[in-house]
């Protein structure tokens, strides 16, 4: 990520958060749909920033082949979509996808700016599902947005939203925090009955509804969280053997924790918009001493711990065997921050030490 100018940027900006309902495994269709959705959101609200969920290429699937196939090269169609949308609409476009970077796959969250700058970060805390598909990134990072007058932006994805470590890393260092979410409501392994599954799902949904506001209070800055949803959210909650549907929650929250705009699972696909003020952080809540900034059901936590461990092992075994579908692709990567410049001279993914060198 780029270095951050610590002289405080401040201002008011209009933000759109998109709640998106992708089809499992249908990456190209999903990107086409997203293209339309973002352009419509920009037409309707004329924002400065559009925030998309993580994993926009495909939600998690019980079919591992389908899930693995959703990865795209880091310089592939998802990144190109963000770049082109940002350039053509003149807004910052932030979103995440399952990315093939070098020898591994990551859940990479991208912030693309109209001047051509692109910031990328790999999600550092994987969920039980993610860990089958990707390797985790290293650290919580922030980016300096030229569009937002050099404001330091905290980029958060998935489980990072509820980690105290996230809050510790970003507190006092960012003027706004944004990112995506694609939480499936995991069925704890001790549960089997439909009613209890539904109960856990609802409790997780309740928890998630509070997360953007909790994080906003702890950081003292506005937060924007965009989530995946399902095309038919009511019908899919308890329908699959391994998970009970996506917990959709999309919110724009001000620095005091007041929800300015919200979409829930009942709203399906769409977008909301709000004006947010950003500037000097004014935290109104301490960073919790535990691992999470909110209460997490012990069974869910235990379940995810086990799933993460199993997923990481599975990922590693498949990687060694070379059976991840994305391993068929010749691999390349580039730096986590790409300089602006003429579109014809953008940096391309390569192999070798050069992609890890700092760029202007």
């Amino acid at each position, binding site marked *: 990520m780029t270095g951050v100018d610590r002289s405080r940027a401040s201002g008011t900006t209009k933000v759109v958060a998109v709640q998106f309902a992708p089809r499992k495994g249908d*990456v*190209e269709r999903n*990107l*086409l749909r*997203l*293209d339309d959705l973002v352009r419509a959101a920009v037409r309707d609200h004329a924002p400065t920033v559009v925030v998309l969920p993580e994993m926009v290429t495909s939600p998690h699937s019980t079919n591992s082949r389908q899930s693995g*196939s959703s990865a*795209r*090269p880091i*310089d*592939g*169609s*998802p*990144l*190109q*979509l*963000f*770049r*082109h949308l940002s350039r053509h609409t003149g807004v910052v476009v932030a979103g995440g996808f399952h990315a093939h970077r070098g020898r591994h796959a990551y859940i990479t969250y991208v912030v693309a700016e109209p001047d051509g700058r692109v910031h990328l970060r790999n999600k550092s805390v994987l969920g039980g599902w993610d860990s089958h598909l990707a390797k985790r990134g290293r650290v919580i990072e922030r980016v300096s947005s030229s569009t937002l007058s050099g404001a330091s932006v905290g980029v958060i994805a998935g489980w990072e939203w509820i980690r105290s470590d996230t809050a510790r890393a970003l507190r006092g260092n960012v003027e706004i925090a944004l990112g995506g979410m694609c939480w499936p409501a995991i069925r704890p392994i001790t549960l089997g009955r439909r009613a209890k599954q539904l109960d856990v799902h609802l409790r997780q949904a309740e928890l998630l509804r509070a997360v953007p506001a909790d994080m906003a209070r702890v950081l003292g800055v506005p937060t924007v969280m965009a989530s995946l949803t399902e095309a038919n959210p009511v019908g899919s909650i308890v329908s699959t053997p391994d998970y009970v549907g996506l917990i959709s929650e999309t919110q724009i929250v001000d620095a005091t924790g007041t929800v300015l705009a919200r979409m829930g699972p009942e709203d399906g696909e769409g977008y909301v918009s709000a004006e947010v003020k950003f500037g000097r952080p004014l935290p109104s809540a301490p960073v919790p001493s535990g691992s999470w900034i909110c209460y997490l059901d012990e069974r869910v936590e235990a379940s995810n711990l086990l799933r993460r461990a199993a997923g990481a092992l599975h990922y590693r075994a498949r990687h060694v065997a070379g059976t991840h579908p994305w391993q*068929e*692709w*010749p*691999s*390349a990567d580039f730096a986590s921050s790409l300089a602006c410049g*003429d*579109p*014809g*001279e*953008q*940096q*391309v*993914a*390569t*192999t*070798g*030490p*050069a*992609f890890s060198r700092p760029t202007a």
Partner: protein
Amino acid sequence: MHESCDVVIVGSRLAGSAAAVQFARAGRRVIVLDRSQFPSNQLSTHLLFPSGVHELERIGALEGILANDPVKSPWVSIRVGEKVELRERWRASGPIDYCLCVPRTIQDLELVRAARRAGADVREKHRVLEVLWRGGRANGVRVVGPDGNESVIEAKLVVGADGRRSTIASEVGSFRPYRSSRNGRGLIFRYGDDPMVDTRAGRTIFQWWEGDSLGFMFPSAPRGRALILFMGASDEVEHAKSDPDGYWSDKLAKHPRMAARVGGMSNLSPLIHTNQTSAFFRASSGPGWALIGDAGHFKDPVIGQGQRDAMWSGRVLAELVADPLDDPAELDLGLRRWEARRDSECLPSYHFGNLETRVEAAPPVLAEVLRLRMGHPNADLSDLYGRARSMPQVLTLPRLTAGLVFAMKRNESQLPASELARHSLHDLKIHIGVRLEKRLHRFRSHVLLAGSEHGNAEPPAYRPTRRTPQGQVAPEPSPALAAATSQPVPAPQVKQAEVASNLSAKQLKEVSA
């Protein structure tokens, strides 16, 4: 106007036509756009080794080209100084065992005709204004035709075959090479009538190495014409520009053996020259797009393999992705695999070109390797130049070691032994590096090979696509075309009117002035 097709190819010369033919044969609807009107010239020394002629045959353009009565050259002579001369017969590639050197006005016209015969819709005097995007993928182009009207062509795949200054490379964000190497040599040539046309010498490709200067002679077309080429230091181009006759005399004086061969040639054309030949690799595939030929990779022309590689890259691209064209994910995977394969195919010759473009006398080891093969007429070392085998396959480590031993023993360069050893081991290290790089299969490798790649490369300067308003269709001439047409008779075997037909009114005025 709005229309759609399977593949839109921008550029209809070597790479573009090769790809168009294969896509069309696979039953795909192909539209090929070219800003030129054919016949159209192109700055090129246009030598094709048997493997390149074989590509022409695969495309279906060879028959038409042979109808123009070119000289078929089945022999090669490589001479280093006074004592080393290798004479071999070229190794056959498929049914082809000869070289051709056919001016681009003839050759490219036949390529376009072959593409049309295969079913491709080739449109001349069409210029691409921009690449269109949808869902993160290139999905077509906006183009302006000769009547000034703009239209949109949607396609599943957009292919840039539009040369070093590729508009498509610029549009897809891949114009800046990720790897490049500066040329040491410039390229200065002219045509003449060869009095030895019907002799064996009249059917031999010649290379002379005198000191640090390289000279070549290629029998050309129509029968009786030949191309005479010097590749000295790149700054010689300035000398050739300011004093063409003086330059030519000086070079022939420096190349006495070449002078003996070409001295009797008459009806000499003006000099044609360039020193803008830095080699490079661009990222050449992405979602819904690919760059073939010089648009994606350019190697130093000193080894004369650009034409063959351009056709190869177009043909192989089409062979790999014609089937999965309807599945975007499979298409993108195919495109990326094609790029990896192209790199693997071209890296050894890229490095070979980088070695040959050094303005130095022939490496003593190479001279000894050539000497060891003297008197054997069958194809072997000429495979290195004719691309029948790659550099590591021809210059094997035992062979290089033997060359090193004999170079040290004979020391004709009269360098101190330590200097000779240092120089030779440096080259040996490069040869080992090439093997290592090929074995590692690193995709778009940024890792430069020390000694092979020369700094301060000058790849084509980036020019943002001009969003020309509707009606303004006359393009600026490319520097290559301008250079080629700045002389009264760049390709003597083609009627002046044919060359002129491709020029704008302004250019015509300049040429006639």
